[in-house]
């Protein structure tokens, strides 16, 4: 199958990244407030509200339990929405991809640039959240700083997954399907608001096999608490390999869509 053909990419990927960065910086105020606000609301409502009734989970206050999960969810949302809705608008409505591939850039570079930009959105959101969580003493220094580089890897997985959907989405409304069928279940059943061990065994297994967020939350929680367990290595390997495969797959799906 040509779906796993190695992509034709060069330094020019950064030019696509820079285009998106420039647009982002033009509207930076809106871009900063939103990702900042949502996790805070969750933290207040669930961590401090619900947390009173829950008490401790896995030996830590409920707010500290969900804080790294909220960071992981933010990584997911930032990347997934960037490479679905925003990329679709650029591809389909604005014809930005068409304009760029008329220059020496290849489509492969455009798509990889979009994915790297989607990962960068994950990094930006994470960097905005960290100081707040540190100020609330919900995460520990210095290990939690590693969440910042880690957010790029997590972002790559969600961006490339999003880009696969974008490559096959007939219309922009089609994204409702992956959101309801995939993002929402992942949001709830990835060890985010209660430990994975509370799930029945088959669901635990399914969550570990299919949900990137499960692995992202596991590693984030380890980094926030100041210690990665051995299981983190498996999660890291899972994320790296799935991220690599999905990136290549999404580029080839896009070629199929746009270079018929």
């Amino acid at each position: 199958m040509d779906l796993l053909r190695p992509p034709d990419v060069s330094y020019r990927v950064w030019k696509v990244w820079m285009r998106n960065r420039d647009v982002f910086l033009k509207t930076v105020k809106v871009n900063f407030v939103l990702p900042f606000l949502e996790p805070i609301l969750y933290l207040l409502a669930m961590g401090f509200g619900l947390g009173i009734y829950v008490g401790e989970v896995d030996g830590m206050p409920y707010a500290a339990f969900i804080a790294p999960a909220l960071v992981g969810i933010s990584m997911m949302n930032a990347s997934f929405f960037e490479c679905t809705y925003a990329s679709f608008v650029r591809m389909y409505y604005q014809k930005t991809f068409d304009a760029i591939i008329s220059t020496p850039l290849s489509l492969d570079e455009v798509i990889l640039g979009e994915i790297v930009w989607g990962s960068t959105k994950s990094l930006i959101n994470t960097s905005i959240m960290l100081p707040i969580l540190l100020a609330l003493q919900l995460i520990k220094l210095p290990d939690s700083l590693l969440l910042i580089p880690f957010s790029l890897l997590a972002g790559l997985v969600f961006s490339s997954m999003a880009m696969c959907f974008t490559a096959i989405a007939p219309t922009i409304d089609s994204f409702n399907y992956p959101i309801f069928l995939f993002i929402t279940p992942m949001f709830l059943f990835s060890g985010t608001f209660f430990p994975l061990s509370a799930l029945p065994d088959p669901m635990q297994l399914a969550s570990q096999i299919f949900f990137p967020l499960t692995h992202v939350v596991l590693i984030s929680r380890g980094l926030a608490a100041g210690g990665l367990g051995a299981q983190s290595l498996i999660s890291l390997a899972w994320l790296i390999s799935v991220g690599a495969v999905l990136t290549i797959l999404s580029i080839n799906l896009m070629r199929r869509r746009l270079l018929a």
Partner: protein
Amino acid sequence: MPPIISAIDLTKIYDGVLVVDGVNFEINEGECFGFLGPNGAGKTTTMKMIQCVIPKTSGRLLVKGMEVGERPREIKRILGVVPQDNNLDPDFTVLENLTTYARYYDIPKAEAERRALELLRFVQLYEKRNSAVNKLSGGMRRRLILARALINDPEILILDEPTAGLDPQARHTIWEKIRALKREGVTVVLTTHYMEEASQLCDRLVIMDLGRIIAEGNPRELIERHVGPEVVEVDSRPEVLDCVLREGELYEEFGGRIHIFARNPKGLASELMGVCDFENITIRRATLEDVFLKLTGKALRD
């Protein structure tokens, strides 16, 4: 000198549909070469294959001796493209559209800015440099896309329907820019379904229909060869048709009128005056539209 672009049996099949059907053409350096044809003829598809943005199905297509499938980056570096559909970046201002585009060609920032401002002067959009793209009129957008196509100082300029949908004045402004570029030695490849645009700008052209090239030459020569200098036009009525048939003249019926490609237009006209109203007969200069009408039996515009 070898042609700067040459196509040999160039073919494109989209989902089993033959869209470009084994076309052959050669475009010389420095000329303005046109593809004239109605919507759906395959002009845009041909342009996109030259631009290396869609793959050809078969045949050969060389740009400056380079095969499109093999060296797309080098080819794209020397091309400037005005696509049929506007794809300016609505997230950027007029000036930013050009500088962002320049970056894709590795043009350093200061140089990009200098060139962008110079090009905005050339297309008369300097005053608008900080405007949002959405605020521009249709003609201004086309001119901005033209400026964008020039940012890499291209050797070949591809203009896909550069003036479609513009009012006559906006169209003339763009024609003037195209002529200026041609004088500077840029090779211009142009598609259009306006016969006037083709005859005004093109040194040579091909007429396309249903994916095939059905005629080729310079505009005047094409008219001479296929139609002759003049055409008689008259309201379509049975007695007129009889007369035309009796004379053995070639004709096409279109829009309630008979267009007669007469050997002796003046003689035929006076003959016809016996059978129909004087006012409804016209003798007019033949155009590329007539060439198309005569070769295909249909009008160029839908």
